[in-house]
């Protein structure tokens, strides 16, 4: 590999550092509010905390319901379970559908693709009550299963489009070679196509996870017990009719965003580097 001029390295790094600072600047207030003992919203120009107290975090982590259940533990578990289940179900539904769209010709293909796109245009305002009735009829109200189904079907259309676009960039030669060697469709799909599409799968997985991880309106409406709530619902309960406990909300916002960042950190080596399409040609 060619050497990169030192000046260019310094300039790019300097730019990125400045850009990161600008990006993180608004988040500093979240940190400031989380660390300050007052529950007021901080507006001052200076986003650095003047006092440091972990009381808000302690309040959040130690909350329990009337039966003495440790709420944070339950809710973290619920959130993780729903989000991971959504990710797995969402990616499963999306990879199979996207593969069909990318590798087969069949009547209704174009209409099917449009139908997936069209669902993203449904405004949420009209969906909530019919969904409630539907889940009620299916007996899935107040269950994590119901939420998982709703979240993954919300995430699937993007994932299908994204994966279809990526599958299209993967040359078909390898698959055809395997087909001649006698491998079945399913084998080819699992063993060849999916590993090659790893970067796109990571993007869709992250997206599905986020869809479930931050949602609270449906979760709060469908679930009927405090210990079955997800974390965003618990977080949103600090927002009241007249005022908000900003300190606790900010602390909660930080706790909620940490797993996302950890997940991204863990996944990013699959997102970039590793397998590249260059390997396909070999």
């Amino acid at each position, binding site marked *: 590999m060619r050497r990169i001029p030192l000046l260019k390295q310094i300039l790019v790094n300097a730019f990125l550092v400045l850009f990161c600072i600008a990006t993180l600047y608004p988040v500093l207030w979240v940190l400031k509010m989380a660390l300050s003992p007052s529950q007021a919203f901080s507006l001052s120009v200076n986003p650095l905390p003047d006092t440091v107290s972990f009381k808000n975090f302690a309040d959040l982590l130690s909350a329990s319901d*009337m039966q003495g259940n440790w709420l944070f533990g339950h809710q973290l578990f619920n959130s993780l379970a729903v989000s991971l289940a959504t990710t797995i179900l969402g990616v499963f539904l999306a990879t199979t559908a996207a593969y069909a769209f990318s590798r087969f010709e069949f009547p209704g293909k174009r209409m099917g693709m449009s139908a997936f796109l069209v*669902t993203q245009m449904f405004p949420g305002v*009209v969906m909530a009550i019919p969904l409630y009735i539907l889940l009620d009829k299916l007996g899935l109200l107040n269950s994590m299963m119901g939420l998982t189904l709703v979240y993954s079907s919300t995430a699937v259309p993007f994932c299908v489009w994204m994966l279809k676009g990526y599958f299209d960039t993967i040359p078909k030669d390898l698959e055809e070679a395997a087909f001649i060697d006698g491998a079945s469709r399913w084998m080819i799909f699992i063993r060849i196509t999916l590993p090659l599409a790893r970067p796109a799968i990571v993007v869709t997985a992250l997206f599905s996870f986020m869809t479930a991880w931050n949602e609270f309106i449906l979760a709060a409406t469908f679930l009927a017990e405090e210990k079955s709530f997800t974390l965003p619902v618990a977080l949103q309960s600090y927002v009241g009719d007249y005022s908000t406990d900003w300190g606790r909300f900010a602390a909660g916002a930080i706790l909620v965003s940490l797993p996302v960042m950890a997940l991204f950190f863990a996944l990013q080596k699959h997102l970039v580097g590793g397998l590249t399409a260059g390997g396909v040609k070999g």
Partner: protein
Amino acid sequence: MMCNCKHGSAIMRTLALSALILYLLCVNAYAAEELTLWHSYRGDEKLALEEAVRSFNASHPELQVAPLAVPHEAYANKLTSAIPRGHGPDVFIFAHERLGDWSRAGLLAPVTLEEKELERYYKSARDALTYEGKFWGLPLALKSAALYYNPRLVPIPPKDTDEMLKIMREISRPEQGVYGLAYEAGSFYFHAAWLFGFGGYIFNDKNEAELNAPANIRSVEFVQSMMKERLIPEEPNAALVAQLFNEGRAGMVINGPWFAGEISKDVSYDIVPLPIVSATGQPAAPFLTVEAIFMSSKAKDRDNAFEFMCYLADDAAGLRATTGRQAVALTQPLLPSGKQIDPLAARFLLQAPYTVAMPNHPLMRAVWEPAAQALRKVMRGAAEPTDAMNRAQLQLRVLTRPAPPEKSPSPYIALLLLIIVALIVWLLVWMKRHEGWRDMRRAGTAYAYLLPAALSMILLLFLPFIVGTAVAFFSHHEGEFTFVGIANFVSILTSSDYAVNDPLSFYFTLVVTVLWTAANVFLHVTLGMALALMLRHKWLKLRGVYRVLLIVPWAVPNYITALIWKGMFHKQFGAINAFLAWFGVEPVSWFSHFWTSFAANVATNTWLGFPFMMVVTLGALQAIPADLEEAAEIDGAGPVRRFFSVTLPLLKPALLPAVILGSVWTFNMFNIIYLVSGGEPEGSTEILITEAYRWAFTRQEQYGYAAAYATLIFVALLIYSNGTRILMKEKT
């Protein structure tokens, strides 16, 4: 081959994990409780409630109460969805304002209480819970605003407005950000205190809303004069009020009991009733909200429910007044031995006689928006009080116009059937002509791959959407739906109730929405792509760190970050204007003009949205063989040429879906508009989805009209996406 085996085991692990999760999801232990209680209390009030429930449960072993705290934002919807379907609570705590809507919609059961018992509650509380001659729910607590003051700045609190203005003139140093009085002057909730003090009213003798009554206008003139003298801060919001008071930069604050929790420990304060309006000699009277415990019409056992209601309203009143710090609605609560009513609650009880109960009239819900817009317009100096209030009255009349006449659904059903039959016939003919059946049989595998996703789409997205859209052909009025045919669509599309260039008009909002979408998508894609291209280089040692730091805006819940951005755009105290001041730019009043307000929205949403595009581009970049670019470089192509002729065309297939979907999401991006500009100035920066939301929830629950709006949003998006696809095809 090695590689393949590894993936095989990865799949096994994934399957095992999913099986485990599925198992855990299904084991959902549900303990049957006898009486469910929903509320949205937090802090001290929640503690007191739980203590009351605990002692009730201890003394009633046969009847166990199970409370559930629901976030306020989802609470009303949860109640209205759950109660009619039998999943609601037996009893619930709510403010009295929705009483009119809910009793008419059949969600509530009326209660009967003996005269002697009733008289133990404050009269204002009893009145608030009376609707159409019946008594609904037992009053728990009174909530209103009062006057907080800082004794260090204001040694003696004012008795009337003349004294108050005198104190304000002594203290205020607007250029240093110090004010005599700080309150949310742009909120009609707080303004109402002055309005009633000036002898004004919302509903006249004929029970019609009349916002432009002369006394109402005088109250707005009073605030206008304080604003002109710069005795109160500009663009006041809840956060600013708290900040000024905590920093000793506001002598007085008008706020409710919840404000006490936001005051720093080191700031001393006291609370008195609001001053008398000197011009009329009447006390300024804030709105009174009565929190009450209501019985669901579907309560399993009404006697049990009523027993607990009485316990909470009466026996537990002392507990609520001490531990819960509530201004309880019972005149003589029995206090726990050795305890006093909480001082904060006691102060607010002094204000209680001089309050006006929030009208429980369903029309009230349409008043807030026009009234607040009028106030803000006057405070910005964009209109005189008389004009502003006249306009508010006009707007209110539009919002509360009578529902369209009822129509017979039969011709519509016939038409619908005809369309369905025609579609089926067309499909069959098409299949026959194009040998579709043969192709379909051959493509069996493809359908098998497609089936799981297609099923979940149809069941969980299409079905609810069709049901939800059907509402567009109805009109919702106080809990009842009537079929009105296409009247809602006609009214929206012909803009029959307002001028085409009025911010309320569909076409005005559509143009804003398109601009909003175009600006955002352009910025998201360029910024995201630029960063992704920079962050893929191997020689960039810290690229992993940069990447994780740059997705932070996506990771942090946007409810809080959007509000932080709103704070940064504050004219006097925001970071953006402070930053611009370094370059000698005069402070910009961001939310007073359309374009600056629009820019503030776009800036916030760009910040929130670029990480997603960056991640997508990073993934898409992997589809480009590195040697292609190197080859182009060796051929002597410069970086710009390389980007446009090699990188971009190769990125396109993987990036296009994200761009198309990104624009669809931005089109419907509700939170940012709602939280940052809130439609300011005068609703002009609203987009279609926020407008639909307002029709559904803040303008008298016109669900039918909102659903028609939502359907039109859908149609607009459909046209847009087909348009872009045709454009793309022409290009390639």
